[in-house]
């Protein structure tokens, strides 16, 4: 069973339809109304490396829709440490659950798991590979703010070399005709093979080292964390990291509907003064992970989301 392994598994039409479903499910995600579309279904959470946020987001999504969740538990105590293959672990969970969300340190693990089991797999990150549910929630957040995905000017900033979030989001954005600007220090620039891929897709991309001069024209600024470990010494890090920080005072001339996003956790790349501005959208973005994953699970399990969710659901007293 295939599931969602990379964004290539979805057509643009499917992406839009899943985002439409997600939008209608918002009152359920907020906990205002109850709609047990997935009652009786079990999600197997298979996190081979810790990621509390992503795991909780999947778990909340399933429970809001009336389903249940089982967890692999702490990998340190599990059979995985005793040398069990991914194949064997998957065989077991395959029998216990109706859908599996997984994260694994090795690249290709999600595709491997999908080939090895009968229930759909939701890839929650495989090594430096793909993380399509993150991309879907990013797209949802952008569309929520702009009412569309087409022809926006999106600046991705910070560590673009190692950040898989930025890789897969930029692929998705150019599919919708967005202009993508990569703003990063030279040492952390977008890998050439990814740029080549995007250009081959017909994508319109630009590279710069100057984030601040991109602010005024941007529709979206997507910040990522620059990690200290990537630099030979502290001085080098401070010099570079300083140029990829946003402060409220930098935003005076930004377009009024511009949004600032971040996959979180942030360190210093977004100053708390930005939180109070109309541009900050990263906390909403994190919340959107729940509603997007609700919609994705319905889609993968073949459960239709009613056109009128309010009429189909009940108020939570």
């Amino acid at each position: 069973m295939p599931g969602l392994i990379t964004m290539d598994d979805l057509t643009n039409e499917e992406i839009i339809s899943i985002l439409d479903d997600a939008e209608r499910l918002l009152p359920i995600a907020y906990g205002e109304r109850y709609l047990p579309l997935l009652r009786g279904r079990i999600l197997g959470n298979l996190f081979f490396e810790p990621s509390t946020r992503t795991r909780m987001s999947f778990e909340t999504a399933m429970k809001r829709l009336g389903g249940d969740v089982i967890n692999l538990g702490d990998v340190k105590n599990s059979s995985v440490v005793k040398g069990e293959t991914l194949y064997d672990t998957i065989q077991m969970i395959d029998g216990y659950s109706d859908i599996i969300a997984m994260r694994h340190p090795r690249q290709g693990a999600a595709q491997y798991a999908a080939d090895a089991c009968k229930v759909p797999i939701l890839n929650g990150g495989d090594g430096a590979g793909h993380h399509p549910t993150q991309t879907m929630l990013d797209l949802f957040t952008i569309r929520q703010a702009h009412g569309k995905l087409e022809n926006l000017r999106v600046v991705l900033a910070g560590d673009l070399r190692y950040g898989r979030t930025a890789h897969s989001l930029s692929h998705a954005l150019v599919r919708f005709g967005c202009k993508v600007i990569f703003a990063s220090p030279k040492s952390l620039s977008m890998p050439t093979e990814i740029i080549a891929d995007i250009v081959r897709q017909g994508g319109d991309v630009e590279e710069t080292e100057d984030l601040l001069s991109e602010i005024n024209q941007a529709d979206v600024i997507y910040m990522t964390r620059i990690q200290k470990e990537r630099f030979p010494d502290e001085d080098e890090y401070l010099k570079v990291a300083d140029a990829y920080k946003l402060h409220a005072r930098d935003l005076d001339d930004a377009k009024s509907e511009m949004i600032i996003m971040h996959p979180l956790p942030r360190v210093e790349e977004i100053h708390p003064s930005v939180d109070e501005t109309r541009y900050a959208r990263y906390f909403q973005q994190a919340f959107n992970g729940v509603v997007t994953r609700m919609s994705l699970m319905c889609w993968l399990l073949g459960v239709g989301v009613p056109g009128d969710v309010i009429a189909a659901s009940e108020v939570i007293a």
Partner: protein
Amino acid sequence: MSVNEQSMRRVTAIRNGTVIDHVPGGMSLTVLKMLGIGGVMSNPVSLLMNVPSKKLVSKDIIKVEDRELNQNELDRLALVAPEASVSIIRAYSVAEKLTINLSDEMVNVARCAFSNCITSNSREPLPHRLLIMGRDPLEIRCHYCGKLQEINDLVERLI
């Protein structure tokens, strides 16, 4: 006598079996390994290595007696000997001519070269799968991790 005829006569003709010609010079041992030929219990094999060639800089010729290789076995050689021409010999004459096809996918031919790929754990039981994404230039990606593969790396990781 042409160069080709001369080289063909360097070894005796076989009665029944398979002749693989136009193997790139020096690659015949790899080819034999990939076909699982040459062990203690193997059929008789004649090898001709580094023969001058019009098509290639130099070529190897392999003759395997009493075994007819099938298309599937031969297609595994696409990585190392894409230009090879193959003759099935019956009663001293060419009964069939085969060429090597590069299929859309190579299953259990070579291992992905990316060190953090899930398939690098040799105990994982699913087959090694490489997808041919483009032919000119040759573009091969791992089915699992999606990484682009270098031919030279793959030749070192033949199964």
